[in-house]
């Protein structure tokens, strides 16, 4: 029996990454799997005001920093929400206002710096252990992230691959999603997703005992309910109107193949476990900005799920 721990959508949160690395020992899991969307969504400027003074606007609240302790504390606070602190000056801020390309470069550099730190931490932590750690970046993660993950000794990049988990179970993995309103880094049309899934499924030795680690949830699974948005990306009817946004190609692939387990993310509000035919599909959800690592512990048996539970760590 293999005990796996799955978490997803940690979006740059240092706390969640540390918890993820500790989850193996804490939950006594054999395998750690991180679903997609590991990078953060915002860079927070720390504007230098002379001497040791900085001004920071975090969540629309202005903080005046007057010494190094406060600076360190504020950096930690920003990182705890998955955002990236960036020390700058009023002059640079004025220049950046006019130069969105440079902003993108800064963003990418900050994202990659943190991913590198995370990989270094994982390598250091797991050297000399048997714990397996798998990762497949999601639609929000830039392509450049892959190279850094690939360079890690202990975190294995499994995008597009069939990975043996134990003697009885294999895993296919993909962080690609169907189209979103945000035009993110790894999204494509359903027919392209179908090809992507079929390429991996065709290589499975025992599809019924497989794990589908696919970032996007299957369509209309209950794990893919998100607020309906208008053309300006505003939730309609105050967010009361929910609609399924999962992948139809994935749903079809699951219905046809009937693997043992589906591991999904993408929709942070979609926490749950549902059956699609005989397949148990899990979306542990995400509360990364609160520093809470939501996850799923699953005991894989031969031809069946021995047990599972959603965790909140």
């Amino acid at each position, binding site marked *: 029996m293999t005990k796996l721990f799955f978490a997803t959508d940690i979006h740059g949160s240092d706390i969640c990454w*540390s918890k993820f690395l500790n989850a193996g020992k804490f939950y006594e899991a054999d395998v750690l799997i991180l679903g997609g969307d590991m990078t953060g969504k915002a*860079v927070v400027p720390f504007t230098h005001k002379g001497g040791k003074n900085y001004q920071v606007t975090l969540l629309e609240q202005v903080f005046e920093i007057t010494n190094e302790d406060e600076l360190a504390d504020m950096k930690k606070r920003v990182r705890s929400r998955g955002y990236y602190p960036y020390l700058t000056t009023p002059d640079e801020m004025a220049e950046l206002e006019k130069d969105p390309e440079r902003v993108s470069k800064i963003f990418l550099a900050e994202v990659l710096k943190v991913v590198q730190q995370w990989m270094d931490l994982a390598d250091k932590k797991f050297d000399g252990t048997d714990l397996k750690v798998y990762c497949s970046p999601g639609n929000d993660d830039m392509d450049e992230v892959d190279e850094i993950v690939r360079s890690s000794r202990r975190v294995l990049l499994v995008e597009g691959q069939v990975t043996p988990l134990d003697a009885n179970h294999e895993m296919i993995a993909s962080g690609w999603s169907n189209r979103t309103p945000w035009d*993110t880094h790894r999204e494509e049309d359903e027919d392209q997703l179908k090809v992507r899934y079929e390429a991996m499924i065709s290589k499975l030795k025992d599809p019924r005992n497989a794990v589908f680690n696919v970032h996007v949830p299957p369509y209309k699974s209950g794990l893919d309910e998100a607020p309906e948005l208008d053309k300006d990306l505003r939730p309609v*009817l105050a967010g*009361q109107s929910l609609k*399924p946004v999962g992948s139809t190609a994935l749903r079809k692939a699951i219905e046809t193949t009937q693997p043992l387990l589906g591991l999904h993310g993408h929709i942070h509000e979609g926490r749950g476990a549902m059956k699609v035919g005989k397949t148990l599909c899990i979306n542990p959800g995400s509360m990364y*900005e609160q520093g809470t690592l939501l996850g799923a512990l699953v005991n894989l048996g031969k031809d069946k799920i021995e*047990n599972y539970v959603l965790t909140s760590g």
Partner: protein
Amino acid sequence: MSNLFVRKATGMVRSWSVFDAFIYAFFSINLVTLGFYSFSQMYYFSGGMIPALLISAAFIIFEVVVYASLIAVMPRSGGDYVWQTRIFGGGIGFILAITGWWFTLWLWTPIYGDMLRQIVITPLLGAFGMQQAAVWFAGQGNALFLCSLLTLAFVALVIILGMKSYARIQKYSFYAGMLGLLIVIFLLFTSSPDAFKAGLDSNSASYFGTQQLRMYDATAVAGVAAFASTPLMGGSFALIMVTLPYLVFFNLWPNWGATLYGEVRGATDYKRNFAGMAWALGVTTLLGILFFLGVDRTIGWDFYVQANATWWNYAWGYTTEVPPLPVWPNPAMLAVFLTDNRLVQIVVLLLMSTWWFGWAGTLFLSSTRVIFAAAFDRLLPEKAAELNKNGTPVNAMLYMLLPAILVSALYAYNLAGFRSITLAATQGIAIMYFGTAIAAIILPYKKKELYEASPIAQMKVLGFPLITVAGLIFGGFLLFLLVEWFFDPWLNTAGVPPGLYGISIANTNSMIFLGSCYAIAAAIYYGFKARRKKEGIDLDKVQAEIPVE
């Protein structure tokens, strides 16, 4: 957060419209269903209704602050259940939330059913000249049970349709309902007491086949005999306060539909959530006052209270004498009696019916979410959260529907005086809110890092976190309500059952109902915890925080 440094990523949605949020909160504190219904039952108090409305709103605004704050700190997390579980740990959150959001909602079913017939079915049947059917539907026993079943059928239909469809129905209902209410208020302010007297006498006969020629006078006499006393204004502060535990049946719910999806942008999100709920509370309070003044002007305040006293004295079984007006004196219906045009009457009654249809559909919405959350936490069978092929949560629905049918029967047939526990429907949820208020008070201290990295970290009152101050005031208010409900120590010093609110500790039914709910919740929690332990799942551990090294 400067947009300059935010990238395009999944979930980066813009703020929703405050007006939309207002609509859902406005429907939750529903003036025409919850309001008219509870006002009518409050015929025996001595505190003025207008000051009571204002004072209750002043307290409930702190509830709005508490919930807007918790949503800003812990969005998308599942509400009271998760907040309490994360802040207190252990089973407290489960037991309080399961009772408040699931079991208590069974008791709301016959109450919704009662409103369906009194607000929708009976007046419309009367308006269409179906006198016998109208009176039958207003009766006890079978009629109330049937209407409870109709309510359940409607709620099940809404669950099958899904919130995407129902949210639109609610929005259309809002506009239709508001139009109806404005017409009612217009009629009340533009007519005269004499016209009302004449309209009541003639229309009550044509609607319900009453033989009473002087309906107004007969009802007034019966009302005096039923000890109608509640004033419109006045009363000491203490007497006004004592009315609040009844009044909150109507207005304790502005937080009902509060949500926050997508990325939290900052303090603005807190303010938007606060604004949606606070405007709903404020506008509903003002409309309530306007309605009272209109009633006073044309129907006459004393007559309004007397008519209510006459009905409820009979409906609650204090007398077997059928009131002169053999149906609930629905204020909207009384208002349409001010016009002789039957078509206008029907149109206004139909418009006023949308207040029920836009509101009642969410009866089991929160329950379904709590059942799902508990099932995902393995504290209920896996099947509880299963969806059928059409995406309908059939089992969760049955968990609600089947017990609700039983409770509806107990209520409809008033078995062992079960109907006296109406306010326990509010009490059970208020106890859960009390848990949330305590959680809010201690949040900045128990979850310091989480609080300090939240959008409300800088919101302080005299140096204390706003959420703590608001939690103390709201929690204090809830504590007052709980003391009143359980003991009503000021006006019922002898502890005579069923007490001023019907649900004191002297009311055995109420205590059994509430006690059973908590006992079942505790049994589920500890039973499933033990079962999962045997299966190799330590539920304490899977909810515990992973150490960060």
